[in-house]
């Protein structure tokens, strides 16, 4: 009995030590970025983890005002926000049909959507660039949003479909008996029950659109429309970067997704785990 207790205590010690090491490993880049955002370039590279002699809060002012991050920030919120809304509507509607209606080709359709997850972004870059050029859609925000939507749709449909399959059907049946239409069932019964899955896909889709740099780099060159990811490139020169303001800009860029993730963390994890076990 004692042997088992000491074994489990040793296991706990190892586990906590491992967790501590991993916390340090993952926290280090964040601490480095935060510290560097208030340091000069010379301080950043001479002693990366030392405290600044005089905190350079001016880096934040340079990043926010002079490098136009305020505008890019708003652009990113609009672009990522619209992507999230469109995806939530489209994925939940597709998932409702795929999880609730038996029809020929149902399984194939789900597989078809899922296969989309396996298409690497870079392989379709040239055709997409060609289409955007041919249709004169450069600097068109809606086109950019639709590209984001198309790349995130497979994952969103998969998560929503798996979640809906696990939702108890008795409420829907009751609604149908009361005379509800399919659309009413979807809107009034299914959607409220799928909030955890919706939260999951929304946070993932928001991050995906927020962090995307490749598509806006190729398709948005109007300074008024650029998102925050492109704004970070403003600090990079050919032969050197302005690291202080760059780090401040990174802190600004990361802050919103981090806050959103912390707010929705539980629902996100709940949504991801859903469908893993059938009730």
């Amino acid at each position, binding site marked *: 009995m004692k042997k088992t207790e000491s074994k489990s205590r040793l296991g706990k010690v190892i586990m906590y030590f491992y967790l501590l090491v991993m916390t340090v490993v993952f926290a280090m880049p964040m601490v480095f970025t935060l510290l560097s955002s208030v340091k*000069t*370039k*010379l301080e*950043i*590279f*001479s002693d990366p983890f030392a405290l600044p002699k005089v905190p350079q809060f001016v880096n934040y002012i340079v990043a926010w005002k002079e*490098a136009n991050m305020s505008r890019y920030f708003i652009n990113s919120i609009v672009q990522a926000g619209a992507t999230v809304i469109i995806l939530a509507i489209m994925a939940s509607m597709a998932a409702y049909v795929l999880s609730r209606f038996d029809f020929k080709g149902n399984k194939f359709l789900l597989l078809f959507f899922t296969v989309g997850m396996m298409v690497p972004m870079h392989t379709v*870059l*040239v055709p997409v*660039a*060609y289409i955007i*050029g041919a249709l*004169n*859609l*450069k*600097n*068109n*925000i*809606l*086109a950019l949003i639709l590209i984001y939507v198309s790349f995130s749709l497979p994952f969103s449909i998969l998560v929503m479909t798996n979640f809906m399959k696990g939702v108890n059907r008795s409420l829907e049946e009751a609604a149908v008996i009361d005379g509800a*239409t399919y*659309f009413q069932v979807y809107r009034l019964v299914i959607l409220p029950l799928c909030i955890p899955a919706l939260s999951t896909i929304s946070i993932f889709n928001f991050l995906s659109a927020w962090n995307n*740099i*490749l598509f806006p*780099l*190729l398709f948005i*060159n*109007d300074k008024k429309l650029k998102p925050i990811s492109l704004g970070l*490139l*403003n*600090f*990079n*020169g*050919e*032969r*050197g*970067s*302005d*690291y202080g*303001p760059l780090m401040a800009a990174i802190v600004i860029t990361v802050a919103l997704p981090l806050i959103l993730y912390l707010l929705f963390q539980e629902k996100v994890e709940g949504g991801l785990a859903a469908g893993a076990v059938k009730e």
Partner: protein
Amino acid sequence: MKIKKVMALTLAGVLSLSMLTACGSKTDSAGKELSDEKVTIRLLTRMAGTSTQVGIYNDIINEFKSKHPEVTIIDDSQGDESAFNNILTTDIASGTMANIFRIQGVANLSDYIDNGLLLNLQPYLDADKEWSGGFTEGSLSYYQVPGHEGTYAIPMESGLIGVYYNEMLFKKAGIEKFPETWEQLLDAIAKLKENGIIPIAMGAQSTYMAGHLHDQIFYKWMGTEAAKLLGNREMKWTDEGVVQTLQFEKDLIDAGAFDPSAAGITDNIALTQFQQGEAAMVITGPWNISTFTDKSATPVSDNVKVAKFPYFEEKPEFKNQDMQILSPYMVSGKLEGKELDLTIELLKMLTGKEAAKRFAEEAAFLIPRTDLDLDKSKCTDLFMQNVEIGGTSEGIGVDVFDFDPLTSMQDRTRNSIVSLFTGASAQDAAAVIQAEIDHAK
């Protein structure tokens, strides 16, 4: 009734989306309507970031805009190399080249010329002698691509890649004069090391730093023309002389010329070692002069001097064969009419005498022109020293791989040179580079 309501809502949604699309493309379509009168010029250069030269570049573009309000300028320029390459690759693949852009290297330009992507600028140089006459001859002829008539780029940046050194640290180690020969350099390294000073700042994780050191050694041992022989395959990387150039770099490593952790540190950390007076030398270009002369960025700025890389006593004929930076502006071969005329006008404004003077005096950024007429009171001593010793070059080479038609050679050569820092022999490094060339045949 309810179905009708849903239908109406759906239709309203579709209508709103199409209106949004219309709003988004309004500018485009408006632009298209007016395209007969309006011209759009797109730039894809490396002039981005927050440096002084980028400020001057933007001023020139704004001046052009005010002269030609009918012209829309879209500047896609990227400082970040991978972002730049992503745009350039997509442009090439989709055939939508920027009006003014940049491709590094010379030998690989042949394909672009064959595909009509590059404009032959020789007729424009011939037509405007005031503009073309000011460029140094070597810089223009650099862009005369073997096998093709004409000149395919305008040089927009040049300057000696020199050895910037801390005079005080040299004196502290008992060295009165900067070494002129390789043997003197090895002696100096030994003395600096004895005094606890890092002889040469090196951040080999940024592979170009180790590559630039090899370029210097290569030109002093083989001459600048040898790079062309490697490119046209008349010479091999495994040839004795070429392997010897790699061995010299290995000798420096073995002599303790660099920080023991040089393989794992970046260029920024290496430069910081020099700026703070921990390292005695750093090999870099004129773009760092403004940093080296700024006391707040370089506390030892008063002691920083510049010199040419030492030559080999056995090869005095290559004493003035130097590595210099040379960066170009290219023009799309697809342009015509008013768009072409305006693009050439902007190109002249960016590389002309007035621009060159401003770039040099305000940003220590050198356009290779002989008609600069610099106000020395506006330039730093370090910059003037660089210009002076750069003017003695009898042969100019950029990177050794610049004349190689194989585009992967930039990464291949640099990575193999870095492998010297992690234990590879000169023969191993040469064999790996040559194998890539042989494999591509």
